[in-house]
Each structure stands twice: as structure tokens, then as C-alpha cells.
């Protein structure tokens, strides 16, 4: 069971109040883009063992989207932050590094 804290309303709840939205910080490639870019945007995923950034929606709560930094091996949640950003905020990166010194960083 995954427990998340919504950064938009501050509620901490288990995963059934939320809805997962897949890998976060994807760059969109739409009509007119190269096939390889479009494929990568649509299908290819990091799917890492370890630190992972993913989108969640507080579906049964405030209804807002946010992003969770989470470990896929342990379900540990490092941080959650609002979705209006292209990359993890610096303090989130620092937080993850302190817990996962071997992590290569967000790329």
C-alpha cells in the first residue's frame, strides 16, 4: 500500500484516494514531430529500478495533479510536489540524494 501526501491540499492518504498518471516530466512530441521522438514520447519509458518520478491525481480529494518522487524497489516516497514544473525542484533532488547517494540524478 502506497501512502502519498498531496502537495495541493496537504492531505496524506493511501493510494486508493489517488489515481496514477504514469511517468512525469515527459516532453511532448505532437503532430509533425519525428517518428522516433513521437515513439519515445508515447511508449518508451524509463521504468527504473529505484528513483522514479510519476504523476498522480488526488482523484477523490482536491482533484489536483501532482508529482511524486518514489522508489520502485521499496515504495518509499521521497517527496511530492506540484505538477507545474518541467523537472524535479532542487530541494527534492537534494532530498533524494541524501537517501539514495548512488542515484545518478534526474536526466
Amino acid at each position, binding site marked *: 500500500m502506497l501512502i502519498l501526501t498531496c502537495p495541493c491540499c496537504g492531505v496524506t492518504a493511501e493510494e486508493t484516494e489517488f489515481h*496514477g498518471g504514469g511517468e512525469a516530466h515527459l516532453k511532448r512530441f505532437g503532430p509533425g514531430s519525428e*517518428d522516433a521522438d513521437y515513439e519515445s514520447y508515447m511508449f518508451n519509458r524509463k521504468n*527504473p529500478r529505484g528513483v522514479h518520478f510519476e504523476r498522480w491525481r488526488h482523484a477523490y480529494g482536491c482533484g489536483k495533479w501532482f508529482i511524486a518522487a518514489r522508489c520502485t524497489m521499496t515504495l518509499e516516497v521521497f517527496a511530492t510536489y506540484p505538477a507545474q514544473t518541467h523537472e524535479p525542484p532542487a530541494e527534492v533532488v537534494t532530498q533524494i540524494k541524501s537517501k539514495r547517494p548512488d542515484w545518478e540524478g534526474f536526466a
Partner: protein
Amino acid sequence: MKRYSAFAIAREAFRQHKGWGEAWTSPEPRASYDVIIVGAGGHGLATAYYLGKRFGITNVAIIEKGWLGGGNTGRNTTIIRSNYLQDPSAALYEKARSLYETLSQELNYNIMFSPRGVMMLAQTEHEKRGYLRTERANALQGVKTRFIGPAEVKRLVPIININGPRYPVLGALWQDRAGTARHDAVAWGYARACSAMGMHVIEQCAVTGVESAGGQVTAVNTTKGTIGCKKLGIVVAGHSGALADMAGFRLPVESVALQALVSEPIKPCMDVVVMANTVHGYMSQSDKGEMVIGGGADQFNNYTQRGSWHHIEETVRALVETFPMISRLKMLRQWGGIVDMTGDRSPIISKTPLGNCFINCGWGTGGFKATPGSGWAMAELIAKGEPGPLAAEFAMTRFREGRFIDESVAAGVAH
């Protein structure tokens, strides 16, 4: 390899069963092999087996980070069927199903294939239309299935409640030559046959890196040292992304946990497999008497081999409505496996950006049923360097080219 037979049992009975020997050996790795298969689950072992049997390639190692068949091979709900919608899927899964029919004899190992019949319940009008479409597609593909009405469902499965308030049974897609097999035995049987051909099954040996030069794999680094290879086959299901990362490419795959559970054993009460995709549940009764129940997949990437509890609750709640008699059963155990999901819910049997490296993954929630067919097609791909007719449509380039093999209906959650 000692042949198993009634005579062998009689002979061994006279000498305290001391002459059986190991089913497969556990050798130390050689410096290099013609082919290395990463992953000694059903698909990896089947690939090795057909490499030897069909193409005479026996200088093969199958390396496994855990124990043989300890991943999804030992964690699935053992369902075998081939009633898929799209032609490439039906061909592949029907090949697998037909190989299962004679696999015990071929491997000289009882895999307990039980063609008891699989029915997929239609519990909404939408689902009914979907299955009628699949029935017609199957007729064209030469896969024998039949859409049956609620009365026929009730006759085949007396314990079912066809008049449930939320999920009435409107009919079912019925495949009478589908069924189940003993999942461990499939891996053990293939391992024994591979070992008998002189292949090396190397357990407790994790791959830590892939060495390549000039676009070709040269060796794999493992916890038992570096092992050279002329060709590499990656058959590691949920961990495909990690292996692909070592080999330097990315896959259209995401790994999630899928759960299953079994009840305490009870007397025989249901002799077919019933799948209810609307409610994300499926159930069969094992030879031990346990009700084997498959549940839903998590909605997030996960490598923990355990799933979230609420899926069990949801699955059981829905199944209790369809099978009221199971409401008093106790759950005996519950477990999760890591499944590799592709965008179109169809597998990948494919060449990779590395010339002599091949990948077999993306079986998602339903790889067990395909084990022999998957190995058959993958062996051909590795041996010839080009896919045969079964694998051709399953190249990973299909995502770039938009040639999806959309099986989200057939696969649903329940496989």
C-alpha cells in the same frame, strides 16, 4: 538423462529410489558460449530448448539471478488459452497451446496439462459484443472457440450465479481445448531437457552488465564473472527494462505488480477456468483443491513483487457476487509478480539495436500460456538472426511504425 517411465519407477522401487539423479545439473559457467539466454523462467528455458531441438545449437547457457522458474513462471495462475482477437496473437498463442498438448510426452516430464476449458464471461452488453467479434475472428484464424449462452455457462459451472444484480452473466466465450498446466513443471521439464542436451543452467547468477563492441554484444558481466557469447537473448519479463538499460537501449515497457491468491483447499467444485474481465477476476480450481484467483495490477511502476491490498479486496468482492459459495472460504496465501506491460498489451519478440542481441518481453499479465510458442519463435529469431512468421509482427519497431497488435480486449487485466 534418465527416462521417466512406469518401468523406471518399478526399477527404482527395488533400490530405494536412489538412482534417479538430478533433473538438471548446476555447472560452473564456461568462459564463453554460442548463445547466452538471460532468464531461466519458462520462456528462457523454452527458447534454449528449441534452439537445441530445432537448430542443433547446444553450446548454450541459461543464466538466472534467482532460482529456476522463481519469477513469473512460478507466480502466475497457470491459464492456457489462445482466444485472442488479432491474427498475429492468435497464431502465436495457438502455436503455444498446441505445443502444450504434447509437451509432457515430448519432454518426458509430466507438466499436468489439463485442457479443461476456459470461459471468459460476458457481463456487460459491450463485453458480449466484443466476444462475439472474437469468436468470429477465431473462426477465421482456425482457433476453435464458441460463444455460449447463460444456460450453457450454468451447466458447465454449476456454482456460478448468472443473475447477479450488478454483473449478470450474458454469455461467455468458451474455448474447450484451453485449460491449465503445472507452471513449475513446465520450467522443470524444459530445464531437464536442456540439461540433457548439454546446455548449462546456471542459477544464482545475476547479470550486472552487458559488454559490447561495434554494435555487437561480446560478453555479459555476472556475479559469477564475465561470460563471453556470440549471441545474447534477454528473456527476463519484468526486469527487461533494467537489462535493456545495461545493453544501452530503452523499451516501450513498464513494470507493474500483478497479484494472485489461493483459497484453502476444498472438494472439487469447478472443473473449468472462469475469467470475468469486467470485474478483474478469474478463478480455477487446482488439483490440490485450492481456488486459484487472479487479481488486478497496480497502477504504478513497482518492482516489489507484492501488490496493494485493495486489489485483492476488489477482486474478491466481485467474485463473491459471481460465485456466492466462495464467500466463506479463507485465503491461504497471496503473492505478486512483476509484469512488463507494453502499450498495446502484446509481447515483444524482437531484434534490438545491438546486432546479436535479441529480446523477448512485454508479455504483461499473460505470458505463461505462450511459453512454448514464445520459445519456439525466439529460438528461430536467435538462430537465424531474423524473425520467423510467428515473431515477425512482434518486433519492437511496431511502436514507431504504428503497427500495433491491440489486445487490450483479449488481455484486459485478466489473462
